[in-house]
């Protein structure tokens, strides 16, 4: 057996390993009946005590969505059975929602146990220093920590439902301003039915003193989850936001259609990092999360900067392209991505960099690793608008194949309408070299560790963009995603 085959087999045997985070928490859910119509939306809105303008916005989105029947994206390199949107359940909140916990002591212990199993540092004593957690359990945010400390500095970090009540002027001003409700099939659906998510506002000149973090989970059966996250960095401010997720094992496919909107004003910087480790389905492709996400940031002001970093190892299907609209002069957009697919996973991920302002810069580094019978696609757009004098883009897009039955695809779109702009794109596809494997093994490193070592090296440029707290976890995840059952 060749070293390559062995490596492939080592990777495959991971499928045999039970999904580490596969368990279901037994919490009584207070759910809307399955199905989607005007009443469902009124139910969600009423349940959350929303103002009239938001209900109107949701209804408008819903009506637009109904017209989009044939606009469910088909261009992506993804294959999945048609989703019955009437089958899904659009609202599920832990029962304790009717009586919100004031402190961790009041939180359902079952829930806390779940987070503990996931290793989420919810309780303060278990928390990594400097990390504030806004945990989303199914659809409702149940606890937020470090809020007081942030409040002192004027930083608002809360659930979006709370923000609608407490800071309606901010939400109304920015919600849908980057991803309009009519944007695309999944974003429009999200606009109609979103239940919760995070809201962050960093005031002028404030440097947020800690990494903000949210862990998403999907729990109750047949519950589509529709987060909505909105982050606004006012002039001269800085914030780093971490999003990480795991989900319990499920037999049926679950839909996840989140929307994340970022707004950076003059001289502001937002760093958004994601580690996505949802249940990918079993070796035969049964179960697993459908992850259709719209993430977009607008550099509204001059010298603004938005940086997306993602490590995508989970989900049966991942469809996302965190994008940057570079409106302000000298604004900067970055996209650093690692996408690992194994077994029957499919990922169609990339970014869009829309250069509108002068001297705008973007950098794209994408590392795709495909193993098993999976398919990994990078799909990216770099558009230079006519007024983007002096714009610069550099794209590096590398794919690594492990095993003979997977596929790696690179589909970059480059549209340049300004001669002073300079756009450069480079891409490579290769396998782990036999020479590299042999060298490592000759030094006594076993095959699985050698594969992990080489893959981590391949991903290094992206891993080093992650905040420290995440980097270690991500590195482990890269190894776990490709390891066999050993170790």
């Amino acid at each position, binding site marked *: 057996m060749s070293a390559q085959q062995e490596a492939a087999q080592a990777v495959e045997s991971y499928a045999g390993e039970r999904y580490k985070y596969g368990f279901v928490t037994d919490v009584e859910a207070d759910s809307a009946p399955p199905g989607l119509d005007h009443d469902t939306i009124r139910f969600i809105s009423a349940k959350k005590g929303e103002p009239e303008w938001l209900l109107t916005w949701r209804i408008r989105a819903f009506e637009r969505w109904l017209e989009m029947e044939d606009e469910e994206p088909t261009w992506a390199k993804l294959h999945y059975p048609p989703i019955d949107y009437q089958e899904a359940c659009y609202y599920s909140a832990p029962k304790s929602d009717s009586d919100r916990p004031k402190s961790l002591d009041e939180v359902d212990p079952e829930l806390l146990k779940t987070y503990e199993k996931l290793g989420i540092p919810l309780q303060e004593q278990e928390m990594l220093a400097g990390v504030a957690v806004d945990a989303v359990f199914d659809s409702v945010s149940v606890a937020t920590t470090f809020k007081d400390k942030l409040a002192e500095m004027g930083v608002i970090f809360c659930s979006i439902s709370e923000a609608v009540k407490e800071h309606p002027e901010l939400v109304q001003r920015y919600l849908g301003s980057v991803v309009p409700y009519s944007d695309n099939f999944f974003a429009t659906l999200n606009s109609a039915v979103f239940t919760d998510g995070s809201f962050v506002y960093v005031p002028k000149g404030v440097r947020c003193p800690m990494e903000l973090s949210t862990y998403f989970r999907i729990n109750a059966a047949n519950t589509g989850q529709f987060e909505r996250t909105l982050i606004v960095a006012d002039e001269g401010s800085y914030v780093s936001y971490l999003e990480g997720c795991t989900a319990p094992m499920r037999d049926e496919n679950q839909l996840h259609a989140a929307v994340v909107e970022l707004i950076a004003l003059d001289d502001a910087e937002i760093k958004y990092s994601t580690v996505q480790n949802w249940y990918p389905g079993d070796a035969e492709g049964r179960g697993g999360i459908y992850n259709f996400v719209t993430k977009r940031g607008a550099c509204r002001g001059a010298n603004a900067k938005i940086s997306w970093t993602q490590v995508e190892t989970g989900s049966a299907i991942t469809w996302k392209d965190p994008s940057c609209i570079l409106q302000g002069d000298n604004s900067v957009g970055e996209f650093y991505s690692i996408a690992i697919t194994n077994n029957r996973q499919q990922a169609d991920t990339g970014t869009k960099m829309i250069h509108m302002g002068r001297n705008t810069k973007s950098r794209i580094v994408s590392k795709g690793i495909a193993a098993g019978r999976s398919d990994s696609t990078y799909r990216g757009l770099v558009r230079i608008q006519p007024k983007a004098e002096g714009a610069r883009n550099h794209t590096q897009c590398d794919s690594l194949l492990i*095993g003979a039955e997977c596929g790696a695809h690179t589909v970059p779109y480059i*549209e340049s309408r300004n001669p002073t702009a*300079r756009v450069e794109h480079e891409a490579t596809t290769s396998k782990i070299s036999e020479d590299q494997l042999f060298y490592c093994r000759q030094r006594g490193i076993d095959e699985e560790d050698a594969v992990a070592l080489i893959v981590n090296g391949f991903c290094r440029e992206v891993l080093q963009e992650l905040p420290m707290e995440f980097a270690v976890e991500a590195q482990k995840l890269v190894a776990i995603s490709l390891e066999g059952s050993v170790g």
Partner: protein
Amino acid sequence: MPAPRTIPFDYPVPSASPAPALPGDGLPWLDALRGEGRRLSAGGLPGTRTEAWKYTSLAPLTELEFSHPAATLTEAIPAELGPGAFDALEGPSLVFVNGRLSARHAQLDGLPAGLRVRGLAQGLADDPAGIEALIGGTEALNGDLMAAFNAAFGADGCIVETEPEAAGKEPVLLRFVAAPGSEPLAYHPRVIVRLGAGSSLTLIECHEGPAGAPTWSNPFVDIRVGEGATLSHVKLQVEGDGAYHTALTKAALAGEARYESHLLALGARLARHEIHVRLAGEGADCQLRGGYMARGSQHIDNTTVIDHAVPHCESREVYKGVLDDTARGVFQGKIIVRQDAQKTDGHQLNRTLLLSPKAEIDTKPELEIYADDVKCSHGATAGEPEADQLFYLRSRGLDLRTARKLIVQGFMGELLEEVGHEPTRAVLAERVAAWIDGGRS
């Protein structure tokens, strides 16, 4: 409002009299092929919602009223065609006027042994079974709309064949020229090229036409390169500024075969050069080189698919372009590596110089890979000439205009170096130089 998948197209414009006969009408297999072509093409032209046509809209073509191509078959071919780009070349040549082979302009004296060149319309009359074997059935259309138009309305073309081990010294020239006229005119020539094992040939395809003439040429070139054979395929496209050119070239390569494509696209209002190469035998080698230079409101689209179907093949692709004024360039290059195609070595590069603030390039270099033991890469760059290159030249005393010209010359010159046949290379180099000097081709 989503873009259309197809654009309705009244082609040919309805006429009171029944459609005239095309050569070969009545042959059952050909009737079937043309019928299928008509059925597919009745759906219209591909629209920009079709991924392969995302950046090129054929909508302007629908504004022209074309009569049935057969209607012109009875017109006399003018004796005087004006100078051709490759007049200075020796060797066999065929001339097609408005898509029809002109017997009086053909130069087929002294064809070397092992080389056979004949017209398609004539072939249909003399050797229908032989032509049927070459063209094949309706499945060859494979749903491709432009090939369907070609199949349905193609009146003529030619067949170039070499016997095993034959080596043609001089290139075979195929000149396609539109005669001056103001009526919209469409033609759909079919060129069939079959290289026997171990043979070699240089084929020149040249498309010319007068300024302003509203023509649509839709050639389909069907190439098979036999085992160990080598085809060097040169294409110069310098049609007038009223022309539409939608070309489809399909090449299939047997083991150890080599296919070189050298394209220089300078003409037409809108031109699309689509090339599909299938590496079907081990050790096959594909070299695609394309140059495009456009100004005014020209639109030049290069779309290529290199399909590695078997192991141990190599492909190299370099496309370079220069865009001025409000011209728009498109490059869509796809490399497919099938699951069995281990040890594939594929490289692709697209570079564009933008000379004007309103020029635009849309580039989509694409890798679709299903085999793990491969080396594939692509690269793309777009921008104006490098400031430090310009500065260097100017610091040596060149004025800005001269410096820019020199840079463009060097940029395009690299491409032409690969053309093996010296006199052919000289013709292409002259065209590039003339373009740079601002002369219309």
